[in-house]
C-alpha cells in the first residue's frame, strides 16, 4: 500500500540567532502515521517543532517543508496552522486576561460572544476541566498536569490534521497520562483501522512513557541537529534504554 505523504521535510537547515541548529533534516510522515522524535537534551527536538510551525526566530537557510503537497517554507505560523498544523507545547506562556474559554471559542471557530458549545463543554469535562477552570487566564498558575490537559483540549477544539506533541507526558501522574493518551489517540485517529487513519502526529518524548499508551509507527532519533536514524520505535527505544544515546552516536559515525 502506498501511503500518501502529509509532511515532507527535505534537506532542511535552520538557524537561530545566526547559529546553525538543524542540518540535513529529512523527515517523511505519511497520512495516518504517528512518529516519535527521540534525542538527548539540546539535540534540537523542540527547534524542529518550532521550525515546522514557522516561528519567526527559526530561519530556514536551506531545504523545504512540504505539507499536503504544498511548499509551506515561506508561510507564516498563522497560515500554516490554518492549513491544518497543530501543536501542544511543553511550557506554554501564561497570558493575563485571556481566558481559556475564549481561546477555545476562537480555536473551535465559534464567535466569542456565544456560549461555549455543548460539544466543547463535554470535551472539557472529559479533560477534567470544569467551567470555573475555563474562566481562568490561560496557563496562569496552571499545574503541570493542567497545562497538558488544556493543551490537548485546545487541539481537540482545533482538530488539526498534523499534530506535534512536545513532551505530553512530562510531569504528569499515571492517571493523567492515561487520560491524555486516550485523547491523543482520538486526535490521531487511532480508533480507526490503520489504512483509514487520516491524522498524523509527531511526538517528542524524553522517557518514552507515553508510548505505552500511544502506538507510534516510526521513531526518529535526533542527534546534534541531524536525524541519526529512523526505524521501529520498539527496537530503538530498547537500544536507548540499554545504552542511552551513546549507541546513536556510534550509529551517526557509521552513517
Amino acid at each position, binding site marked *: 500500500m502506498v501511503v500518501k505523504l502529509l509532511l515532507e521535510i527535505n534537506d532542511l537547515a535552520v538557524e537561530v540567532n545566526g547559529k546553525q541548529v538543524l542540518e540535513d533534516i529529512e523527515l517523511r510522515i505519511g497520512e495516518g502515521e504517528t512518529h516519535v522524535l527521540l534525542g538527548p537534551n539540546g539535540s534540537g527536538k523542540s527547534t524542529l517543532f518550532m521550525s515546522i510551525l514557522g516561528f*519567526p526566530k527559526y530561519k530556514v537557510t536551506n531545504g523545504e517543508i512540504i505539507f499536503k503537497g504544498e511548499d509551506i517554507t515561506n508561510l507564516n505560523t498563522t497560515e500554516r*496552522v490554518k492549513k491544518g498544523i497543530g501543536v501542544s507545547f511543553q511550557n506554554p506562556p501564561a497570558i493575563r486576561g485571556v481566558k481559556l474559554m*475564549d*481561546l477555545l471559542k476562537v480555536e473551535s471557530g465559534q464567535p466569542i460572544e456565544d456560549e461555549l458549545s455543548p460539544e466543547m463543554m463535554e470535551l472539557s469535562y472529559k479533560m477534567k476541566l470544569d467551567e470555573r477552570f475555563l474562566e481562568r487566564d490561560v496557563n496562569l498558575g496552571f499545574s503541570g498536569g493542567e497545562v497538558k490537559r488544556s493543551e490537548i483540549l485546545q487541539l481537540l477544539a482545533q482538530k488539526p490534521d498534523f499534530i506535534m506533541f512536545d513532551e505530553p507526558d512530562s510531569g504528569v501522574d499515571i492517571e493523567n497520562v492515561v487520560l491524555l493518551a486516550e485523547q491523543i489517540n482520538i486526535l490521531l485517529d487511532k480508533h480507526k483501522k490503520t489504512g483509514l487513519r487520516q491524522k498524523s502526529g509527531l511526538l517528542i518524548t524524553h522517557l518514552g512513557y507515553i508510548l505505552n499508551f500511544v502506538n507510534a509507527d516510526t521513531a526518529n532519533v535526533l542527534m546534534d541537529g541531524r536525524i541519526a536514524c529512523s526505524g521501529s520505535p520498539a527496537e530503538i527505544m530498547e537500544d536507548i534504554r540499554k545504552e542511552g544515546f551513546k549507541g546513536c552516536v556510534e550509529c551517526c559515525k557509521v552513517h
Partner: protein
Amino acid sequence: MLQGALEKAKKAREKKALYGEDIDLEKFIKEEAGEHERLNKASEVPKKVQESLLKVGVDPEEKERAGTFIQVDQSGVCSTCGSESVEIMGMNVATEKYSWLKDYMWKAVAVDADKYTAQTALREAETGETSGYFIHSLPGSKEVFPLQACMFIGDEKVMQTSHNVIIAEENSELHIITGCTTGEDVSSALHVGVSEFYLKKGAKITFTMVHNWAEQVDVRPRTGIMVGDDATYMSNYILTSPVRSIQTYPTAYCPGKNSRIVFQSILGGQKDSVLDTGSRVLLEGEGSSAEMISRAVSKDQSQLYARGHLAGRTQNVKGHLECHGLVLSDDSMIYAVPELEGSSTELEMSHEAAIGKIAEEEVQYLTSRGLSEEEAASMIVRGFLSMDITGLPPELALETKKMIDMSLKGM
C-alpha cells in the same frame, strides 16, 4: 453657599491645578441651567443621545436600575427613582429639600483646590443653581440595582460643571454607574465634575464610571471620599476612547477604623490623548486597607500618567498599589508614579509598577492556534486591560463586564 467658602473660591479663581495642562476657562460658554427641557423619563431623550448613553453603560430603558439622573450641559433634565432605599435627584432640588445638605458641600473636596473647583462654586453662587446630582441611601438599606447618572455634553464649546454629593447612611449599600459622554456634533468642550462621597459607619458604595468623550474635550473631575468605620468604597474607572485631556486625582480619606478602599482603572490612550489620572488613599483609621490597581495601554501619540499615592498614617493599616502599562507605539508614553508614604509603625504597604511591550512569546502562542499576529496582539491587549472587578453584586458584575468588553472593542 457659606460666605467663607465663597471668599475662598474667589481667591482661587486663577489657581492652576498641580497636574495637567492649564485650561483657559474663558474659551468656553457658560450655558444656563434651564437651557434644556425637562423629561419625565430617560427613554424620552432623543434616539441619537440614547445610543451615546448605551455606550457608557447608561440604559435609557432603565432596566434593572434603581434610579436615573441625566444632566445635559448645565441642565438636570431627568431624575427618576424606583427604589425605596435610595433617593436620587438634581442638586438644585436637593438643596431646597434638605437644609442640612450644605454641611456636606465642599467638605470632601476643597473649594479652593484649584480654578476648576473655584469656578464650580462661583457659578453656583452667581446663578443660584447647583447642577449635578444628589444620591442618598437610607440607614440599613441595601439596593442591589445600580443607580445610573449621566453627564452629557450636547453643545459645542460648553463648560459643564456639576457638583455631586453622595451619602451612604450607616450600614447601607448602594451601587452607582456613571457614564459621561458627548453628542455627535460636539468636538470641543470642558467638563468639570466635583463629586463628594460620604460613607457612614458600615456603608458600602461601588462607583463605576465610563468616559467616552469627543476628541477635543478637556475633563477635570475633582473627587473626595470620606470613609467611616467599617465602610467600603470601590471605584472602577474606564476610559479607552480618544479625548483631548483628562486630569483627575480622586482622594479617599479614611479616618474610620477597618475601612476598605479599592480603586481600579482601565486606561487606553489613543490619538493625541493626554490622560493624567491617579488615586490617593490616606489611611488614618486602624485596620483600614487599600488597593489601587491600574492598567494602561498607550497607542498613537497618547501620553498617560498613572499616579498613585498611598499614605499609612496609623498602625495596622495595609495597602497595595499596582500599575502595569503596555507601550504600543514609539510616539506614545506611559509615566507611572507610584508613591508610598508610611508614618507609623506596624503597617504594610507595597507597590508594583511595570511598563513593557506585548510579549513576543504570547503572540506566537496565539498564532500557533490560528490567530493572525494582529488578532493575537489585540486579544493580548484586551486581556491585559480587562480586570476582574470584584465586590459587585452578580447582576452588576455581569453588566460591568459587558461595559468593559464594549470599551475594549475600540482598542
